[in-house]
């Protein structure tokens, strides 16, 4: 969710076609079949094809649901995800969210942050209070996403998008990211990716 690689656009086109009213009855019955198309970008085993695409396997189900809802509403902008989410009803979104949430979080093999960098990241965390929402070890809960082990490139882009309010579906996060010095955010991105 959020990236714009060619693969993803292709997925979106395919899915929109499948979801049209005329062929709705032809939709696969099981949720696993229903979300098969997602693997084209988010990965068959949960490892995204492109580093700018987020991990959604093992992500918090409430968070996945809210993002799908926001794509549909247009609160979160994405040329790829908006057409896909626009065909979903609430129950679809909840089912998809639950499906991906129950999958194991994949290990991208990103290196652990160096000690000095990690200490800087934790100082920044202490100042802003990230774990007040993202919880201990950045595991997330409910509508708050897991950040630990997320793709570094995706984290960097998301934080940048919050700072410019390009990502507009959580102004509270924009406020917090704007209050944090860029060097501290770079340390946080590195630290989180390596968890």
């Amino acid at each position, binding site marked *: 969710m959020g990236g714009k690689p060619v693969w993803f656009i292709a997925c979106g086109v395919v899915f929109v076609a499948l979801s049209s009213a005329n062929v709705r009855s032809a939709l696969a019955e099981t949720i696993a079949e229903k979300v098969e198309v997602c693997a084209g970008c988010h990965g068959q085993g949960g490892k995204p094809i492109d580093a700018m695409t987020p991990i959604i396997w093992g992500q918090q189900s409430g968070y996945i649901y809210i993002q799908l809802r926001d794509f549909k509403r247009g609160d979160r902008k994405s040329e790829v995800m908006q057409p896909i989410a626009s065909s979903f009803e609430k129950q679809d979104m909840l089912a998809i969210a639950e499906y991906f949430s129950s999958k194991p979080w994949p290990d991208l093999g990103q290196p652990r942050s160096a000690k000095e960098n990690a200490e800087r990241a934790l100082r920044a965390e202490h100042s802003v209070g990230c774990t007040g929402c993202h919880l201990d070890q950045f595991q997330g809960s409910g509508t708050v996403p897991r950040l630990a082990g997320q793709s570094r490139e995706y984290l960097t882009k998301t934080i940048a998008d919050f700072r410019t309010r390009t990502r507009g579906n959580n*102004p509270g996060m*924009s406020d917090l990211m704007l209050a944090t010095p860029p060097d501290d955010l770079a340390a946080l991105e590195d630290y989180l990716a390596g968890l």
Partner: protein
Amino acid sequence: MNSYSIAYATLFGLGCVLAGPSGAQEVKQDPWSPSREAKIAPVTQAQLDSADKNTANFLLTNGNYAQTRFHPARQINRDTVKNLHVAWIFQTDVKESMETSPIVVDGVMFVTTSFSHVYALDAKTGQQLWHYNHKMAPVTTFCCGPNNRGVQVLGDLVYLATLDSKLVALNAKTGDVVWKTDIADPELGYSETMAPTVVKDKVLIGTNGGEYGIRGFLRAYDAKTGKLVWNFDTIPEKSVGVWATKDATGRDMHRDIAAEKAQLAKSGDPYAKLGGGVWQNPAVDLATNRIYFVVGNPSPDLDGAVRPGDNLYTDSLVALDLDTGKYVCHFQYIAHDVWDLDAVSPAVLVNVRSKDGKSIPGVIHAGKTGHIYVHDRKDCSLIRFSEAMVPQENMWVLPTKEGARMLPGANGGVEWSPIATDPDQGLAYAINLHQPMHYRVENSAYPNGKLWLGGAFTAIADEKQSGNITAVNYDTGKIKWQVKTPEPMIGGILATAGGLVFTGEGNGKFAAYNSSTGKELWSFHAGAGVNAPPSSYMVGGKQYIVVGAGGNTQVNFRRGNNIVAFTLD
């Protein structure tokens, strides 16, 4: 059974902060955990009414309906406390922030954890009797941790409010669900972390959500059926008030009233998404049939430009009629708050000295500002406020885009932590945070139930944080004694007739102090942050002190999953 030794407890939580994630917050315990029946007689209203005199039990979140957190047992006292030792440790299945107030009924203890789990334990041994694992809805929206502060029992039901904003009644003997009611929509920012207060067949419950643009409330539900009895909106449709320019202590808050009036003409009364959560239990005045509680911050927290007016009844003490939920009186501490220095620590009913020296029914509240406010219970009017318990600097500088430094930081002073009182000494005991912060303002439209801070408050990295335990004479407003602590204090405190106060710290220390002098008399290291309010009770002729040691999300203290009970040899 989940009882472990002291050695296990002290080893617990030695993980390095730089270590990687340990997985989910839920910890798998011994799979052999047979359910047993909790053998307790139904709790009567008469028992609850006289809870303040009951040495055997701890029946309400803050000890009794007046919320004094003063326990009448005196077996553990200034002479004997040196012999206090661990009776048992129970480990829950959830290693995350722990704010529970243990409730004890006839030798059965009820505790809760983050994510709204409930356990019934044998209060003498710590043995698990039953465990309620709430099936959480996928959408939860909460500020400051997935906490739960406890349950209450009336009759044969245990009442719980859950993170996904449901009210649940459980069979006290078995933990089975008897009824369940939706309180509000989590997708719009509502959640529950407080313990219900149950009185006269009504379950009183507020709501969280002041960081998400909710419209707050306090409600009464029928204790037998879960049906709504009455609703009080903490934000009235006319929320503008009197354009107060000074806070409760008389300091100018630097409001731009002209700009606010212009905004009001443009956008109208902002009541519908103005916040005003109720984080903690109301106190119940049985003599007048009134309840007293405090209301939290306006939404968005730091950006006042979009919410003209005093933002009634945010940051206020409010009194209602218990039977009808009708408004009786209020007192607002900070009108048009743009610092999140709101009112969260529960109100306490004690007799106080009026301005002319008479003993009258009073109500006191410890603020994030660091003052203890003393009110006349008759009309909510302010009699006095205490000396500041924490450093105050640069109040009330307005937040800026670059960040304006002000003390106290946005957590207080006194956060949600309940205070304790000793009526014989006329003392209130509060635990405080000292966290220098920058206050920053940003402007954004209402985000449909998402986090809506209107800026950020950030701890200043190179300024030292600390905490304290402070005893305040509420008849004079003077500080009697203060103990400094190395870290900010959050969790709660208990006073006893044994002349002691008990409280814990984020570093795992749990200690007893002489309630007259503040002298430390005993301590224990729990291995995880002790950031929950202690309780006391007696079983088998022995007095116990019990407290949760699970750390804290808001201040990021070391997590754990321990309930630790202490007694004498």
